């Protein structure tokens, strides 16, 4: 029985990638907190996760040799605009405090995903060593 990395690592690899992307989007929001007419954006993690789960349960079948296999990241994370809690005069919708908490939470989520992924690797390692 061969070790399949895709099965062994599960969803955590994609989750980690998504969290890195989200950290970039949130950093962009924070850096533009003073830019006039800048609209804050974010990735809807729930929607992406649902898309990923749907993609894994109803996978497209390649019935022809020239069918293109879907990429591992079958869903496309869509950037959405945030609803401002309090409109600002210069058209900027960045709430620095809210963005900062989301960035901190995203970092924690990243560490959680990392922890899971690291656990999988450790499991694989001990399986290979057999001790």
């Amino acid at each position, binding site marked *: 029985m061969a070790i399949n990395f895709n099965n062994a690592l599960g969803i955590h690899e994609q989750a980690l*990638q998504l969290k*890195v*992307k989200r*950290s*970039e*989007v949130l*950093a*962009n929001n*924070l*850096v*533009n*907190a*003073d*830019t*006039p007419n*800048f609209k804050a*954006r974010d990735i809807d993690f729930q929607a992406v996760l649902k898309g990923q789960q749907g993609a894994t349960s109803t996978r497209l079948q390649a019935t022809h040799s020239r069918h293109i296999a879907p990429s591992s*990241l079958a869903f*496309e*994370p*869509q*950037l959405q605009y945030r609803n401002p809690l309090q409109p600002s005069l210069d058209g900027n919708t960045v709430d*620095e405090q809210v963005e*900062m908490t989301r*960035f*901190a939470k995203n*970092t924690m989520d*990243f*560490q959680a995903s*990392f922890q899971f*992924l*690291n656990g999988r*690797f*450790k499991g694989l*390692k001990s399986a290979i060593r057999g001790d």
Partner: protein
Amino acid sequence: MSLSGVFDIAGMGMSAQSIRLNSTASNLANAQAAGSSEEETYRARHPVFSSVAQDLLSPSAIPSMGDQASVGLQVVDIVESTEPLEQRYEPDHPNANDEGYVFYPNVNVVEEMADMISASRSFQVNVEVMNSAKTMMQRLLTLGQ
């Protein structure tokens, strides 16, 4: 991994905020520099911020996020304030003109102080973001160890 993009963004933010802090320092330093005519008197200057379009920076940074995704911040211009200068009657002033008037810069010291605090807070936020990205990257390097 696009974590290095966070470093770029935070770095651009810090550089823009330091330009803002620089202009504030320049305004405050010249707040009392009286001139003898409207032309040669210092005017308050402020940077204009604009987000950088994504395709200019790195087209492959966030490939799936549409063309309107913007990354980073830049200072596109530094504009001089068009507020009227303050004219004071000081005939003993060495820079006084023939009628005895001197012109003081249109620097609003209270506004400048508030702007200074805002700039330094934004700078701190960027440092925080960079530190978080650094921690994330260091964790990634220990994967599988």
